[in-house]
């Protein structure tokens, strides 16, 4: 029997895990993107986020994806990631617990809509959020300023 393919997910996160993941990236500019396999605009922007990561990796940008798909959708998540081969790590939000606790831990202005992204500077300070698709060109200009600001 063939061995199961290794997971393409870097792990699962709850609210505390999310904060730790951001803290681990201190020193980098971080763009966290929340997505789900069923979210059409999320799927549409995925390739552009990969390209954004590739263009700015050397300068210190780290894109992190977090799937909010439920546990029953894990296979769909793995299939999606296997097909898209993103240039950034992806986690899945842990299924247990109150959605609201997680949403508020990310940003209290977030209403839970997807896609949703959060930009952090090198010190780990939240700079801004994006509700809906990330406006890549404008966001990249802002990201490059953050990357240049040591």
């Amino acid at each position: 029997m063939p061995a199961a393919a290794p997971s393409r997910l870097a792990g699962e996160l709850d609210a505390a895990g999310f904060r730790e993941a951001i803290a681990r990236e201190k020193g980098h500019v971080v763009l966290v993107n929340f997505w789900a396999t069923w979210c059409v605009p999320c799927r549409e922007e995925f390739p552009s986020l990969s390209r954004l990561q590739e263009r700015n990796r050397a300068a210190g940008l780290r894109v992190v994806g977090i799937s909010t798909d439920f546990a029953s959708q894990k296979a769909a998540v793995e299939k999606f990631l296997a097909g898209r081969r993103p240039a950034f790590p992806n986690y899945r939000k842990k299924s247990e617990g109150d959605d609201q606790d997680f949403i508020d831990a990310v940003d209290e202005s977030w209403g839970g809509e997807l896609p949703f992204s959060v930009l952090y500077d090198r010190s780990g300070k939240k700079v801004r959020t994006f509700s809906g698709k990330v406006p890549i060109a404008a966001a990249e200009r802002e990201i490059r300023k953050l990357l240049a600001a040591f």
Partner: protein
Amino acid sequence: MRPFRAILALVLLCAASSASTAEAPAIGAAAPDFQLTTVDRKPFSLSTAAKSHKAVVVMFISTQCPYSNAYNEQMKNLANTYASKGVLFVGINSNKTEDAAAAIAHAKSHGHTFPIMKDPDNKVADLYDARRTPEVYVIDPQGKLRYHGRITEDHENPASSPDLKNALDSFLTGKPIARTETKAFGCTIKRV
């Protein structure tokens, strides 16, 4: 970059990343009144409906969003159950990507008999700062907002907290609503 262009770029970036033009009404404050036409061409006025019901539940819904569709059965059941208690459920489709014909077909296929309205240019969604589908608002007969947020904590877990039902039951029996504002994941409203 010249200062003016930098400022303009920042303003445009803020506009692009902002989902709505108004802040959400606060719990206990007046819910924005609105008038729309139902998909079967009847006029609807929130203030008129509120005065003649124990409560009005305004639901921002979608024909295509899996999260909204996961609640199709619950929406139908809640609307039917609470109709006898004087509560009116209404659905508002603010998505530019979903037309009235789709909304009508969706309602028919899911047995939704509550009024459904398209929201041209997502004006009502903007008034309520509605961000996702589904997202619900409970309005009392005085037009005040009593509950805002989700239907249940987790649509995959039947035992999860039925927040909307709890809010309605508390309100209808004169008890304080324990959780007046809740959040859950959903699909962004596809605005113009």
